[in-house]
C-alpha cells in the first residue's frame, strides 16, 4: 500500500491542528498534545503444513492529551470527522478546572536527529510471496529436524507505525517505525512426553535481517532443538541454591527485578521500593545497568518516544550505585528531573507512561566458563517464559529450560522452574558478572497497565550467590 501522508489520512491542516490544541487548552490546561497514528500490520501463519491464514490491519486514530498540574485528561477517536475531533479535544480539556484559556505556540517541525532503524528491504513494501517463503522455510527447518517433532507453528508479523506528535509548546515531529518478527513454536513428542520449544528474531529491521543476521532455518532449528532438549529434561530441585544466569535471555531478570521499579511514575508516587534509594549503593561495584533506546535495529529502539522526546541511553545503576530513572514528561516535570525519552504508549488509545526500551546489565570481567566452574551444586537458567514484578520488589520469573550444575559442570537438562526473590536482595547477591554481554530474542513484549510495547533485554553470564528455585522436592 502506498504510504499516504498524514494530511491524506486525517484531512487536517496545520492551522486545524493549532485550533484543536487551543480548544484543548480552553479550560486552562497547561499542556496539550495531539498524537496521530496510522499503522498497517500484516500477519502470516503456517501450521499443519499449510499457510493457514494471512491478515492485514489498518489502525488509524488520534489521541488528545491535556495536563493540568498532576492531572491528565485524555480522549481519542478513530472517527476522523472534525466534529468528533473537536469533541475529543473539549473532553480532554475538561480536566482543567476552568482557568483562563491558554494558547499554543506556533508549530515548528524539524527532522529527527538520528535513525536507529536498519531497513534495506522494508517488510511493509515486500511481496506477500517473499514473506510466505520465509515462513515456509522456518516451518520446514523445524519439522524436518527430527522425527520426534510432531507439530510446528511458524508466523511472521510486521508493521509500519507512522506517528505524528504535535503539542502546545510548538513541537511537531513524525516517526515511521518499522517492526518485524519471525517466530517458530515446535512440539516434540516421545514416550508419552510432550514438550514445546520456541525461537524467533526480528527487530526494527528489514527482510534482509533474515538473510544476514538470523536465517529462517536457524529459527526453525532453534525451536526444534529446545523442544527435544526438554524431552530429556527433569524437573528442578526445589530450595535455595546458587544460580548462574545464561547470557542474553536472562536479561528478563533485570527487566523485571530492576527496570520496572526504576520507571519514574512508581518512584514519584513512592510505591517503588527504590523511591528513597537514589544515589545509594544497591549492588556490588561490578554491577552497571543501562536502558538504551538507541541501539541500531533493536526491537525496543525508537527515533523519538511517544511524546516526541529524543531518546537517550540512560544509566540506571552505575558501579552498584542507583543513578537514574526512566522518565516521561509528566514525571520529569513533577520531579524536577530531566526527560530521558522513555514516555511510550501502545497506540493512540493510550496515554504515554514511563517504559523500558532495551535494558541490559553491562559486561563485567569474568570468563563465563570460570563462573560455572565456581559452582559446586546449583542451577543454570537458560531460557524463560517471562516474569513479573510488583512494586514491593518481589519478582518471579519462569525458566522454561536450564541445566543442573554439579561440580562446576552443566549436567542434566531441567525444565519448568520458577525463580523468586526480592530485588534489593538479589542485586546484592549478583557476585560475578561475565564478560559476554548478549541480548535475548528480538521478539519480546512488555505489559504495564494494559499497554503492550516491544522491548529487548540482555545481560552477560551472572552468578547469583543464593536464590529460591521452585521445583520438585
Amino acid at each position, binding site marked *: 500500500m502506498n504510504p499516504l501522508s498524514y494530511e491524506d489520512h486525517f484531512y487536517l491542516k496545520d492551522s486545524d491542528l493549532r485550533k484543536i490544541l487551543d480548544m484543548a487548552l480552553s479550560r486552562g490546561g497547561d499542556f496539550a498534545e495531539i498524537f496521530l497514528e496510522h499503522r498497517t500490520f500484516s500477519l502470516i501463519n503456517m501450521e499443519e503444513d499449510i*499457510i*493457514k491464514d*494471512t491478515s492485514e490491519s489498518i*489502525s488509524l486514530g488520534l489521541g488528545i492529551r491535556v495536563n493540568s498540574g498532576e492531572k491528565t485528561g485524555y480522549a481519542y477517536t478513530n*472517527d476522523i470527522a472534525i466534529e468528533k475531533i473537536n469533541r475529543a479535544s473539549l473532553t480532554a480539556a475538561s480536566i482543567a478546572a476552568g482557568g483562563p484559556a491558554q494558547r499554543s505556540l506556533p508549530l515548528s517541525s524539524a527532522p529527527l536527529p538520528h535513525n536507529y532503524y536498519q531497513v534495506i528491504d522494508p517488510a511493509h513494501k515486500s511481496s506477500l510471496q517473499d514473506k510466505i517463503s520465509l515462513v515456509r522455510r522456518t516451518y520446514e527447518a523445524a519439522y524436518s529436524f527430527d522425527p520426534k517433532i510432531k507439530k510446528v507453528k511458524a508466523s511472521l508479523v510486521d508493521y509500519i507505525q507512522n506517528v505524528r506528535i504535535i503539542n502546545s509548546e510548538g513541537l511537531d515531529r513524525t516517526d515511521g517505525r518499522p517492526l518485524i518478527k519471525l517466530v517458530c513454536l515446535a512440539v516434540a513428542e516421545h514416550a508419552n512426553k510432550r514438550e514445546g520449544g520456541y525461537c524467533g528474531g526480528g527487530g526494527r529491521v528489514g527482510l534482509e535481517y533474515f538473510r544476514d543476521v538470523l536465517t529462517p532455518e536457524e529459527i526453525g532449528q532453534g525451536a526444534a532443538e529446545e523442544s527435544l532438549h526438554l524431552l530429556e529434561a527433569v524437573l528442578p530441585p526445589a530450595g535455595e541454591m546458587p544460580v548462574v544466569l545464561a547470557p542474553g535471555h536472562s536479561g528478563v531478570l533485570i527487566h523485571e527485578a530492576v527496570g520496572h521499579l526504576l520507571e519514574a511514575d512508581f518512584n514519584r508516587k513512592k510505591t517503588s521500593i527504590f523511591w528513597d534509594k537514589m544515589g545509594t549503593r544497591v549492588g556490588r561495584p561490578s554491577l552497571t545497568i543501562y536502558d538504551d533506546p538507541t541501539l541500531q535495529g533493536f526491537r525496543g529502539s525508537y527515533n523519538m518516544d511517544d511524546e516526541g522526546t529524543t531518546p537517550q541511553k540512560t544509566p540506571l545503576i552505575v558501579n552498584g550505585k542507583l543513578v537514574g530513572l526512566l522518565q516521561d514528561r509528566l514525571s520529569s516535570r513533577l520531579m524536577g528531573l530531566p526527560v530521558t525519552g522513555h514516555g511510550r504508549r501502545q497506540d493512540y*488509545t493510550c496515554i504515554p507512561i514511563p517504559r523500558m526500551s532495551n535494558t541490559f546489565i553491562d559486561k563485567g570481567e569474568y570468563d563465563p566458563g570460570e563462573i560455572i566452574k565456581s559452582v559446586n551444586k546449583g542451577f543454570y537458567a537458560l531460557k524463560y517464559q517471562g516474569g513479573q514484578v510488583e512494586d514491593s520488589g518481589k519478582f*518471579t520469573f519462569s525458566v522454561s529450560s536450564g541445566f543442573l550444575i554439579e561440580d562446576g559442570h552443566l549436567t542434566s537438562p531441567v525444565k519448568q522452574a520458577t525463580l*523468586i526473590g526480592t530485588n534489593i536482595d538479589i542485586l546484592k547477591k549478583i557476585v560475578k558478572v561475565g564478560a559476554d554481554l548478549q541480548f535475548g530474542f528480538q521478539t519480546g513484549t512488555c505489559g504495564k497497565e494494559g499497554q503492550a510495547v516491544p522491548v529487548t533485554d540482555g545481560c552477560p553470564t551472572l552468578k547469583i550467590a543464593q536464590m529460591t528455585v521452585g*521445583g520438585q522436592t
Partner: protein
Amino acid sequence: MTKAKASQLIALGEHLVSKGLSLGADEVEVSILEGTEFSVDVRMGQIETLLEAGSRGLSLRVIKDQKTAHASSSDLDRTQLEYLIRNAVRRAELASRDECAGLPQLEKKHIESSSLLLYDPEIPLLDPKDKIALALETERIGLSDKRITNSHGATLETRAMRTFLINSSGFRRDYEETFCSLGLGLQAGDTDNKVEGSWSSAKRHFSSLETPEKIASTCIERTVRQLHPKKIRTQIAPVIFEPPMTSWLMGFLCLCVSGTAIYQRASFLADKLGKKVAGEEIFVSDDGLMPGMLGTAPFDSEGVPSQKTEIIEGGILKNYLCNTYAAKKLKVRATGNADGSGIGPHNLYLHKGTDSPDTIISTLDKGLILIRTIGYGLNPINGDISRGAFGLWVEKGEIIYPVSEITISGNLGQILRAIEMIGNDLEFRSPIAGPTIKISGLTLAGA
C-alpha cells in the same frame, strides 16, 4: 446508538459482503464493533487520569476455494475498506487450501439478546462527576485505615458497545452490551517491607457494583493480612485455593480445553475426550446464556448461538471449547466459543460444593492458603505449573502467619485429581470462576 447510525453500519457491512462476493470470494464475514468508554483513575484524593472516548472497528474474513484471509480496520472509509477486501481476496488466493475453512451454517436457533440482560441503559447516562466521586470515595475509605501506607489508586470504568455481525450465509444480527468496574490497589508496610493488595468489582449493571465500603474494606483486609511474611522451608503440603486462585486455575484449564490447542497438540488434554481427567466430584461448565453475567452473549464472533457446554462431568472430560474451524478439525460440534480468530470462554466455572470456606480451613492441619500468584509458569503442553506465590500458613485449622517468596509447582492433570474439598462460595466476579478448593498436596519451594 441511534437507529439511523445502526442501520448505516449494517448497510456498510452488507455492502462489503456483496463487494467481497463480486470480487470472487465464496464466503464473506463482516463484524463491526462500535463503543464508548469512560475511565477515571484517582490517587491520593486527586484525579490522576480521566479518559473518555468513542471508537469503532471493522474486521472481515473472506474464504475463496477453502483458502482464508483476514483484514481489519479502524478507518471505516469506504474506499479504504474496498481496498482492504480486494487485497484480502487476493491474499486468500496465495494461502493454502484447507478443507476445514469456512463459515458456520446458518442456524435457525435464535437467542433474543434482551433476555440475557447484557445492557444497562443507566450506564451511558451516568454523570462523570458521580463516577469520579465513587472512585474518590473508594480510595478515601481505603486510605482511612492506619495500616495502609500508600495507594495505587482507585479506578472506575464504564463501557457501552454494540456488536454487528453480517455474513454471506444470511446471518445479520447485532446486540448491545455494557460493562462497569470499580477497583482499588493499596500498599501497607514501610518502604522495605511493603505488601500490596487489590480488589475490584466488575458487572454489566451499574446498580449491582459492590459499594465503595465493600471494595475498600476487602482491599484493606487483603493487603494487611500479608504484613510481616515469613519464608517457609521447602516441602510438599496441602494447599487451599481462595476463589480468585480457583478462577486462575480454571483459566489455565480453559487454555488446555481450547479446541485450537487440542488439534495443535499443544495441550495435555489432547486425546482425552471421554476419559477420566479429574475426581468424581468435579464438574466444570461453560455457559454463555446466564443472564447478566460478564461472559454472556447471544452468539459468538462467527454467529454461532451461545450454549451451555459441559467440559468436565463427574471427572470425565466431555467437551472441548470449539469454534467452527476447530470443531471441523476435531469432528465435533462447534460450541459457540469463537472469539475473533481464536477461542474464548463465556462463563466458565467449577461447580460449587457443600463446604463453607471456614470448614475447609478448619480441616487443614498444616498447610497453605494460596492467596496470590505472580509470574508466568503455565505450560498447556504438559500441564505443568510453576509460579511465585503468596499465602497464609495454617496450623491446626488456624492461620498463623503470612508467607511470601515461595513458589508453588505442580501439574494441572494431577491437581484436578487431588481436589479433596470444594467450597460453597462460588461467585461470578469474572468470566472464569470457581469456589474455594483444597488440594491434597503441592510442592512449595522456600528456604
